[in-house]
C-alpha cells in the first residue's frame, strides 16, 4: 500500500484545515506578480503558518497548472540555475477572486457563531 498522504485518523484537524487553505493562499500570492516556488514559500512563511513542509507546495502548483488556473515558464537566473515562474491565468484570476470573496463572507458568518466560545474563554 502506498504511503498515506491524505487524511488519516492520526492527522489532526489543524493539519487538515491548513491544507485546505493552501490553494487559496497560493493563488492569492500570485495576484500581483509572477513568482517562483521559493518566492511563494517565503511569502507564505512571512504571512501565515500554513506550510507544513516546503515540498508540498510544488505538487500543488503542478495541480493548479493542470487545472488551468496558473501557467509557468522556466527563466534563467543569475543564481546559476533556472527558476520556474508561475502566474495566474484568466480563469485562475476568476477563481482566486471567487475564493477570496467566499472566504470573506464565510468568516463573517462563522465569526458571529464562534463569538460566544471566545467570549467565554476570555472571561
Amino acid at each position, binding site marked *: 500500500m502506498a504511503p498515506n498522504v491524505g487524511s488519516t485518523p492520526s492527522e489532526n484537524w489543524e493539519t487538515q484545515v491548513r491544507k*485546505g487553505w493552501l490553494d487559496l493562499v497560493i493563488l492569492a500570492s500570485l495576484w500581483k506578480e509572477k513568482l517562483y*516556488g521559493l518566492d511563494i514559500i517565503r511569502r507564505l512563511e512571512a504571512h501565515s503558518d500554513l506550510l507544513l513542509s516546503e515540498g508540498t507546495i*510544488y*505538487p500543488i502548483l503542478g495541480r493548479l497548472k*493542470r487545472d488551468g488556473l496558473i501557467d509557468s515558464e*522556466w527563466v534563467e537566473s543569475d543564481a546559476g*540555475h533556472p527558476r520556474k515562474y508561475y502566474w495566474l491565468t484568466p480563469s485562475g484570476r476568476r477563481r482566486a477572486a471567487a475564493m477570496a470573496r467566499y472566504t470573506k463572507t464565510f468568516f463573517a458568518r462563522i465569526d458571529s457563531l464562534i463569538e460566544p466560545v471566545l467570549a467565554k474563554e476570555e472571561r
Partner: protein
Amino acid sequence: MSHPEEVQQKIDAYLMQLRRSLGELPPDEVSEILKEIRGHILERAEASGELTEERLVAILKALGSPEQIAPLYQADALVARARSSLSPRVVMRGIHRWSTLSAWGFVLFVLGVVGYATGAALALTGLLKIFAPSQVGAWVGPHAFFEIGVINDPTAHDVLGWWLVPLGLVGGPALILATTRVLRWTLRFARIRRPTTA
C-alpha cells in the same frame, strides 16, 4: 557555486531517492520536478552563506522527505490522467491511487475490479459460445438458478442459446466502457479533502 563533496553527494542522493519514488510518472514530468526541487535546494543553500552538512540537513528536512513528497505528485498526476483516459489500466491506476487516500476511493476500486472483471468474463463467454456451443450457455436447472458460463450439470438447460454470443460480445465491452465512464465521472470528486477551497 561549488559545495563540499559530501554536501553535493547528499543533494544528489536526495534527488535520486525522489526520482525513484516518482517512478510511476512519465520521464519528462519527473525531470521537470527534479529540476524544480534541485533549484529549491540550491537556492536555499546559497541563501545560507557557507553550506555545511548540518545546514543542508535542515534544508532537506524543511523540504520534506522524498517519500513524503512523491506521493503528493503521484496522487494528483495519476488521478488527472485517469480522469481523461479511456484505458481501463490508466483509470484503475488513478482509482487505486485514490483508494489509498480515502474510503470512497477504496469502494470505487472494488467497484472497478468487479465491473471490469464481469465485463471481461461476459465478453469471453460470448466468444467461447461460438466455439463450444454445447458447453457454454446461460444455464437454468434444479442446481443452477441462472449461471452464465461452462457448467457440468446435465439437468440444466441453456435459456439464451445463441443469443449469448451477441449479448456477451456487445454487453461485455459495453459494461467495461460503462465502468470506465462511471469511474472517470467519480474521479472528478477525487479532491474531496479540500472542502474549504472547493
